[in-house]
């Protein structure tokens, strides 16, 4: 809560342990006590969950309830709101409260095993800590010959989450989180009395993208992850705050590591962004850092065609020589970069290569999207016209266009669900069908065919039920790049309704790459290439004479230009060929290019064909900044120092120096400094053309259905490699079709597109039109783009088979 919000609320004054304190009306006593530095012990209480009053650990004495009358018995301070004139005595000043708390603690411990020495929670356990602060030293239960209740241990409640029932204190934090926050009520209390336990449904697995949060908020060691169980002791870990690199949400995380190895990741606490929650991908997907295919030294291709190890200076020199000889060079940095590294690519292209042929978009893209990014996205942010997470709470309605937050932006999903539950924000989604994720956000569907979104969006301005106004927010996903006219229609809708607009890409580095000019028509800080004064400004900042006055080629054009020989060199960052608009064409370009320099963390199809391969530092090994979808810079420090890995910026600076150019920085910190110095463009920003740039999209023919697709949160993505338990919680890939189509198809369907075919089980989506089929984009084979067809195009459905 911000200061101004507090000022607006009525303050209530009460006395706790003889100290007067004023807190906003509605504050719970347990949190009011924190304001005067009194920590009342608690287990079930969690500030982000609805009060339940189950554990009774936080009992306090209330000699005056604010009406002059005492409350007859101790009260659970986690359930009673403050009242004017209330008097509360906690364990600090009240013997009654102290005895009540000691009594509850004694009860909690009678059935709790004494296995702290082998328990993962030992050392960071609220039960352990509070038993020390608010419990008795000796066990009367054990002394009186008590027999503990035991359970066989542990049981899997999912592939990732394990439950030790005998450690559980039944605070119901996990079940309440799943029901209230994630909307996945797949765990629930079973049985009663001391046999009460957390359980799962026989036929419904604990399938939640957010299950890991239950482990983190478990106040005992009852919930552990298969991944971290018995791996480490908390007091052996070093914690470094970080920012999750798996999506564009910018979730705060805590990286816990020991002797140079990440042992686990936890949610950080950032009320402005992710509160205290992160997705399972943010939490568990860090095994890619220690896979066998990690690159650890530079390689250059020999005369005999083999890649061989090389020293850094040699690799720099070979790369520079090769690029100089290759002629025109295109730069494809990918979408996973920190803003500093993206700035380095942007600078490298302009300063060392003298080209605007740079495009971070390693996915289907369009010229309309590029115009949209320059006109509507770059430089927008909190306090500068862009919506924030907090705006979602305040919004009367939120319109999602081509965006499935549960899969593509987990933190955003949780905040939208909260906005709907707590603030009655209405959620609308322009999509081909209503997903479970939309249902969990209390949302309603605005049906649209793949590729036909533009008309639907334009129609929204006149629809009575979807009321968009100045307190509304429109969130558009990156997939709309290839829906002709959609982004232009969204921009018009925002303008006519006054709604705030934001673009939500999938990758952590996408927005930073926009801001730093990793686009053929945009320079760092939103400077349009077409604007002469912006070019002069950028050239001056870089200390070069000038910049080409025409925009460069986008990623698709670079691939084409390599094929026709007009571009000879490629500098490729973290790009997976199968993510690109046409994987086959991209691979052909890699083969055709005269010289390829790859900067990668792990071996990929790009590094295998490259002429020089540089290993680059992962997020743990470098400081940096991710710019999230809000446009909020999310800076983080390196978890590990003195590793051999160099950030992309350092590698590019090395190549540039061999090319005789000076980027003006070598380290990430220097790149950051230069980026800040260059600053934002204060001249006119680019405007969106009234009619979108022409796009060629081949829709389905009469006997085909249109292909709708997006990536599930957990799929075959390479950054989930090395994490078998996490992978096991991924959803089963299915093909969703209309009820009519499903009846004709049977249990299995084979989809045939112009790039191949995919066979999947059929699942019915009631509101899907008969001529649309949905498949997950990267859950089978090499993914839909490589194996089937491009999104929005036509595919044939063939039924049969089991």
């Amino acid at each position, binding site marked *: 809560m911000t200061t101004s919000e507090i000022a607006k609320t009525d303050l209530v004054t009460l006395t706790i342990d003889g100290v007067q304190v004023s807190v906003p009306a509605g504050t719970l006593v347990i949190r009011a006590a924190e304001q005067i530095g009194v920590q009342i012990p608690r287990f079930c209480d969690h500030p982000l969950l609805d009060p339940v009053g189950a554990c*009774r650990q936080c009992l306090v004495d209330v000699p005056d309830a604010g009406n002059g009358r005492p409350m007859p018995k101790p009260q659970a301070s986690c359930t009673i709101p403050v009242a004017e004139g209330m008097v509360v005595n906690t364990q600090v000043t009240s013997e009654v409260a102290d005895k009540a708390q000691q009594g509850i603690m*004694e009860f909690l411990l009678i059935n709790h095993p004494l296995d702290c020495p082998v328990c993962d929670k030992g050392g960071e356990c609220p039960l352990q800590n509070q038993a020390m602060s608010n419990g008795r030293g000796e066990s009367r239960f054990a002394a009186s010959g008590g027999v503990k209740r035991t359970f066989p241990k542990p049981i899997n409640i999912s592939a990732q989450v394990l439950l030790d029932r005998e450690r559980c204190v039944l605070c119901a934090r996990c079940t309440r989180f799943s029901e209230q926050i994630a909307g996945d009520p797949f765990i629930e209390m079973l049985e009663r009395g001391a046999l009460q336990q957390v359980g799962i449904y026989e036929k419904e697995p604990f399938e939640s993208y957010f299950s890991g949060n239950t482990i983190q908020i478990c106040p005992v060691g009852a919930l552990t992850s298969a991944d971290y169980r018995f791996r480490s002791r908390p007091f052996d870990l070093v914690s470094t705050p970080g920012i999750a690199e798996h999506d564009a949400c910018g979730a705060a995380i805590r990286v816990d590591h020991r002797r140079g190895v990440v042992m686990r990741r936890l949610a950080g606490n950032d009320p402005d962004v992710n509160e205290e929650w992160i997705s399972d991908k943010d939490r568990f997907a860090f095994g890619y850092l220690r896979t066998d295919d990690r690159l650890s030294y530079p390689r250059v291709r020999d005369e005999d065609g083999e890649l061989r190890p090389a020293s850094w200076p040699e690799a720099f020199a070979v790369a520079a020589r090769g690029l100089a000889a290759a002629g025109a060079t295109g730069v494809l940095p990918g979408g996973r970069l920190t803003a500093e590294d993206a700035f380095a690519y942007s600078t490298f292209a302009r300063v060392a290569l003298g080209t605007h042929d740079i495009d971070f978009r390693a996915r289907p893209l369009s010229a309309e999207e590029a115009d949209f990014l320059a006109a509507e996205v770059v430089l927008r942010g909190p306090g500068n016209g862009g919506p924030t997470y907090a705006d979602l709470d305040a919004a009367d309605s939120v319109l999602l266009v081509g965006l499935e937050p549960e899969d593509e932006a987990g933190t955003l999903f949780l905040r939208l669900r909260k906005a709907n539950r707590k603030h009655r924000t209405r959620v609308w989604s322009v999509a081909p069908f209503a997903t479970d994720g939309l249902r969990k956000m209390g949302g309603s569907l605005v049906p649209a065919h793949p590729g036909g979104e533009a008309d639907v969006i334009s129609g929204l301005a006149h629809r009575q039920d979807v009321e968009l106004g100045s307190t509304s927010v429109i969130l558009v996903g990156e997939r709309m790049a290839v829906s002709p006219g959609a982004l232009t229609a969204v921009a018009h809708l925002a303008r006519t309704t006054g709604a705030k607009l934001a673009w939500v890409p999938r990758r952590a580095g996408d927005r930073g790459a926009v801001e730093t000019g990793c686009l053929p028509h945009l320079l760092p800080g939103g400077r349009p290439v077409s604007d002469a004064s912006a070019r002069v400004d950028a050239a001056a900042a870089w200390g070069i004479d000038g910049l080409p006055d025409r925009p460069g080629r986008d990623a698709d054009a670079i691939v084409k230009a390599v094929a026709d020989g007009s571009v000879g060199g490629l500098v490729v960052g973290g790009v997976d060929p199968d993510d690109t608009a046409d994987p086959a064409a991209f691979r052909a370009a890699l083969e055709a290019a005269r010289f390829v320099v790859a900067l990668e963390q792990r071996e990929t199809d790009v590094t295998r064909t490259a002429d020089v391969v540089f290993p680059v530092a992962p997020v743990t090994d470098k400081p940096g900044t991710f710019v999230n979808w809000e446009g909020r810079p999310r800076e983080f420090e390196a978890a590990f120092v003195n590793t051999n890995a160099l950030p992309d910026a350092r590698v590019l600076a090395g190549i540039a120096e061999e090319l005789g150019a000076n980027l003006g920085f070598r380290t990430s910190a220097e790149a950051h400094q230069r980026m800040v110095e260059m600053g934002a463009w204060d001249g006119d920003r680019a405007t969106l053309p009234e009619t979108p740039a022409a796009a060629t999209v081949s829709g389905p023919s009469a006997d085909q259905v249109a292909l709708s697709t997006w990536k599930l949160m957990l799929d075959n993505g390479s950054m989930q490699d090395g994490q078998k338990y996490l992978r096991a919680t991924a959803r089963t890939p299915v093909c969703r079709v209309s009820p009519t189509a499903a009846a004709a198809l049977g249990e299995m369907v084979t989809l045939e597109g112009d790039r191949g075919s995919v066979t999947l089980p059929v699942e019915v989506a009631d509101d899907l039109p008969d001529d649309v089929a949905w498949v997950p984009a990267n859950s089978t084979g090499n993914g839909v783009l490589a194996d089937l067809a491009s999104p929005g195009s036509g595919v044939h459905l063939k039924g049969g088979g089991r």
Partner: protein
Amino acid sequence: MADTLTPVLTADWADEQSWKLATYERNGGYRAMRKALTMAPDDIVTAVKDSGLRGRGGAGFPTGMKWGFIPQDNPNPKYLVVNADESEPGTCKDIPLMMATPHTLVEGVIISSFAIRAHQAFIYIRGEVVHVIRRVQAAVAEAYAAGHLGKNIHGSGYDLDVVVHAGAGAYICGEETALLEGLEGRRGQPRLRPPFPAVAGLYASPTVINNVESIASVPSIIGNGADWFASMGTEKSKGFGIFSLSGHIARPGQYEAPLGTTLRTLIDLAGGIRHGHELKFWTPGGSSTPILTDEHLDVPLDFEAVGAAGSMLGTRALQIFDDTTCVVRAVLRWTEFYKHESCGKCTPCREGTYWLVQVLTNLEKGVGREEDLEILLDQCDNILGRAFCALGDGATSPITSSIQYFRDEYLQHLSNGGCPFDPVASTLFAAEGAR
């Protein structure tokens, strides 16, 4: 002895086919309903307030006042829920009533629903008593057929539907908010209050929850007038109630008498304590009320006097134990019940009852220590008033009260190395005069 017994609810229990609509109407049934439907709903509420009727489910909250809490400006539907989940050890009044004259309850439901402007009522019956559920279902069906339920009841323009709901066998569902959870299809565990059911009860709508006997008393109040009802009983505990005598008594059963009668009177009516034995201890209102002894035979059985004697009137479930009974054993059995029925939601009740049973078991076997009595009392102190609902409080009542009156008997178990009583002697099949 004109005032000794006041059969109203039980008056027709002995009739041939007393549960049939025809029998009930022959005895004047559904007249009060016809009268009520011509009254203003608020006047019915006032009449029930004036009668002084207090909740018969144990807590004794004034029924009319409870009805008055329903916010009539709330746009949500109003609900009447009848708590027929009678499961307290010793309590056996609602089940016989529903068995013998279910129409008394149905008529009460109609009048009460009309008064609070509910168009939907639920009767939540304990799941184990299938025969009673069937009988109430049959009575409701008869009432529908006779036009007492359904649309536009007897041309009054008032609609009412009644659903008979079977519980799933959990004592906790007698707690009103746990009952609502169960009725909504969830696990029976008590809800956090506020909001209170009167404001946000069943399906988050204003809800009145009353005991069977309370609702069944309403027709007589409307039929005979509030003054008639208030003329019985004591100053603050008006009217009559069913007193259920069980245990070591010559003629166990239901005795309907004005509140304020005494156990001595009731034992006389029931033919005295089991032949050849003396009263040792008794519960005034089921196992959750602290036990009393023969020194309390003349305590008026109303809310105030029993409270003053250190116990609670509760459900007027008078369990009578004679001198063959081991109090430790009886308390252990009760405690085992509470352990089994604790819902598990809150720590003191869940863990406390688990531990209490272990300590009591040791004491009963004579392997405990004298300090265990202090631990036992301290445990009870840590449960009483600390639990989420009254179940935990109830679990401590027999223990603290039995130690208060029979501490020596506990110690005797320890010095004797086991129970000094013959458990067979306390059974009803024991030979007469066995000690």
